[in-house]
């Protein structure tokens, strides 16, 4: 159990998927303008990433390896993720309409969120077993949500301050992200 806790802390704080590993930066800057959208996207990513981490691991271990098709990993994973996102969208729409209302528009965006695909690849590259993969996927997604919500909290305040003209929009967003990343890199000695 101790190993899992260490893995969680490391994936959320030390090797944060957004700020240190640089995965999923497009939605990070795209949907972090307000707190509501950031929380919605964060929850959607936690849900899909955990499922995707599990399913891609199963596909890789029980389909690709026995058939000797490891080189098709990229194609197989992206198809699995695209199909999964579509499927999750339909299931949520049928069974939990309020959740669908909240997550609806963010779900399709997740297909091209490189965090999902990246974590699936990391799981395989690091040789994690099924349980570790699920834990790592969940923890990475929590790290994603944490960074996204932090960023949204900061960006909401930009509306109230005067920013030099050339820095408006994405430029100040990137520099803020840099400062958050700097704060996170102070936690490197933690694990």
């Amino acid at each position, binding site marked *: 159990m101790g190993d899992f806790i260490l893995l969680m802390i490391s994936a959320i704080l030390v090797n944060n998927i957004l*700020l*240190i*590993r*640089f*995965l*999923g*930066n*497009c939605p990070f*800057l*795209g949907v972090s303008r307000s707190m509501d959208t950031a929380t919605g996207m964060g929850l959607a990513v936690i849900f899909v990433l955990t499922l995707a981490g599990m399913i891609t691991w199963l596909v890789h271990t029980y389909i690709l390896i026995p058939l000797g098709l490891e*080189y*098709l*990993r*990229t*194609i197989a994973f*992206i*198809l699995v993720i*695209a199909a999964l996102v579509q499927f999750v969208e339909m299931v949520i729409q049928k069974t939990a309409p309020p959740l669908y209302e909240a997550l609806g528009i963010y779900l399709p965006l997740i*297909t*091209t*969120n*490189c965090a999902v*695909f*990246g974590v699936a*690849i*990391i799981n395989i*590259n690091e040789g994690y077993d099924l349980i570790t993969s699920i834990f790592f996927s969940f923890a990475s997604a929590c790290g994603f949500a944490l960074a996204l919500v932090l960023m949204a909290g900061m960006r909401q305040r930009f509306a109230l301050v005067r920013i*030099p*003209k*050339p*820095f*408006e*929009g*994405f*430029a*100040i*967003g*990137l*520099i803020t*992200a*840099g*400062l958050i*990343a*700097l704060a996170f*890199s102070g936690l490197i000695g933690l694990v």
Partner: protein
Amino acid sequence: MSLRHEFTKGFWEIVPPFRLVLGLCPTLAVTTSAINGIAMGLATTFVLIFSNLLVSLLRRFIPIQVRIASFIVIIASFVVMAELLMQAYFYPLYKALGIFVPLIVVNCIILGRAEAFASKNNPIISLADGLGIGLGFTISLFVLGCIRELLGSGTILGFHVMWSGFEPFAFMLKPPGAFVALGILLALMNLISQYQAKKGGAK
């Protein structure tokens, strides 16, 4: 819509990742040195050119409802090709870029061009668009890579260019440095655009 314009717009007008804020992950992650930037840029260009060409050739045959899935399969096939080619001929670079080579498949620039441009235009114009945007992306990565390599380790493409007592600025090679460098570069580009617009208005 001239061929020349479709090719050159990728260099300034809509140069990724500055004007089109897409494809940030590889931009931030691999630009610790200029050579990595070029390698990533060229691999992306390769995929972008061929996926644009193929999407454009097949645009009448792909049903509109499943177009995104079809584009992703086309892109993924070329990414696997790029991955295997790099593994065979440029192994050290393949190692240096690591996970970001398979991740070209989720680079939103490529899907974005397939959806916004190649699926609506003929193959020759789409090819020009892919080449222009791809080279623009390569140049952006190269510039960012140069800045980070110069300040972070005092070299450009591995050659020492700073004076002998230069203290490398390790912050630039770390993840936070990537965000800050890209943010400042973007602000600089906005400044130049504003200046141009003002000059244009004064005429």
